[in-house]
């Protein structure tokens, strides 16, 4: 930190301050925890796809996990691969980014990359919410947990982008 010194004269003189480019590790830990939660949820939903008896959820009324998880939107288009598999891959990469930030806390590019990755996840979540409501007309609670995890991930990555490091 460059000590702030007061110049003489008018109060409009600039007071130089700098911020460290290192961010608190708590943010990276939170991102890692969210990624682990996401891995767990995606892994469970993938297992449910192949063994439907594992599903613990309402299947009547508006909240109907089975209707959502068995709709044509539950697989990657044109394939029989459950859409939770790309989700699992997303959270694995998110975990890798979070762990990298713990090891290299001064690396701002990692934070930027994680924010972009988080943004992509949020956009995907918004699309899946749209499909749940508009096409399937049912809500899947487990899917909503995944969407919330994606939203929190993005918000924390945004938080960690500021304050921006000083150009030296």
């Amino acid at each position: 930190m460059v000590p702030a010194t007061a110049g003489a004269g008018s109060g409009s003189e600039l007071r130089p301050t700098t911020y460290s480019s290192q961010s608190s590790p708590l943010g990276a830990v939170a991102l890692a925890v969210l990624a682990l939660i996401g891995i767990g949820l995606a892994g469970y939903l993938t297992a449910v796809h192949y063994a439907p008896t594992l599903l613990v959820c309402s299947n009547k009324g508006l909240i109907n996990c089975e209707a959502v998880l068995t709709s044509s939107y539950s697989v990657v288009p044109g394939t029989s691969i459950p859409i939770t598999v790309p989700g699992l891959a997303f959270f694995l990469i998110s975990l890798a980014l979070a762990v990298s930030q713990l090891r290299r806390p001064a690396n701002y590019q990692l934070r930027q990359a994680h924010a972009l990755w988080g943004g992509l996840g949020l956009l995907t979540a918004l699309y899946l919410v749209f499909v749940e409501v508009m096409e399937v007309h049912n809500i899947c609670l487990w899917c909503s947990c995944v969407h919330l995890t994606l939203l929190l991930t993005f918000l924390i990555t945004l938080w960690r982008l500021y304050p921006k490091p000083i150009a030296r």
Partner: protein
Amino acid sequence: MSKKSMAARRQMREAAAEGRLPGARQQSRSRTKGRNYRRNTSGRPWGLISGVVGVVAVFVIVVVLIDISLQGALKQDTKVLPAPASLVTALANIPAQTLDAVKGGAIANYPVNIPSSYKPVALSAKGLPEVGFVGAEYCPYCAVQRWSLIIGLSPFGTWSGLHTIRSSVYDAPSNIPTFSFAYGAKLTSKYLVFSTHELESNVSISKTGAPYKSLQSVTGPLATAYSTIDTASGYPFLDYAGKLAQVGSEEGTTTTDVAALQDLSWNKVLTKLRDPKSPIAQVVLGGANYVTAATCTITGNKPAAVCNSSRITTLESQLAASA
């Protein structure tokens, strides 16, 4: 204020800025660095985060409100479930006497020889004759055709990856229980290759019927045959190795037997298939017999056990004479 005093004030301000006033402290070192210094006033992005949360909340609320306003009496069943093994097994083992009793059934539009004027291209893959299917999940006639295909091709191989769906509720006949070939369905056979192309799903974009969401595409010789022979690009379309083709519903213009499948369950359809006189058996099993006969013509009448049966040889003769 006089001009003199204004000038004096200005001089004092300039002197202060340059630190020339008596007793002025030295300028900070960073001030002399000029370009290397940049003030950073960024704090935590509360506004941005609140904005993102707000946008997401508004998005969800708007989507829910739009859905509520669009909800009508009809609700498309979009479930795609693995076909129960017991159902597939039952379809692969329809008793021969039932199939014999139905023979051609209610089928008015069976596969016919492709005229040479269409310059048909022999369809084959992996050294085996290819049967190509072009259809759409929403299509009610494709819905019935798939039952016939599954039953009719069972003597030639083993099915896997079949999924149950329902045809469109907005079409007529509506909500027919059927299967989709789009989710990894496969016929493992040493006699032929069965290629399937579900061009559209059963999800209506307008929530009132057509158009439906695109699903798969068709390319290569089958695409050429489809566009050449089925000039209306309708569904279903079947091409038997470039020798025989079926354009449109196997039942032809009569749709009453197809309508008999509306709103039924798959098990209910299976029950109806046990009665050779039922309208459902007449169209599904009649169609299956024609599928078997057409396939036998391109596999060199293999396997002999089914291709040499009297009902199949009779239908093969009919197909051979068709134009």
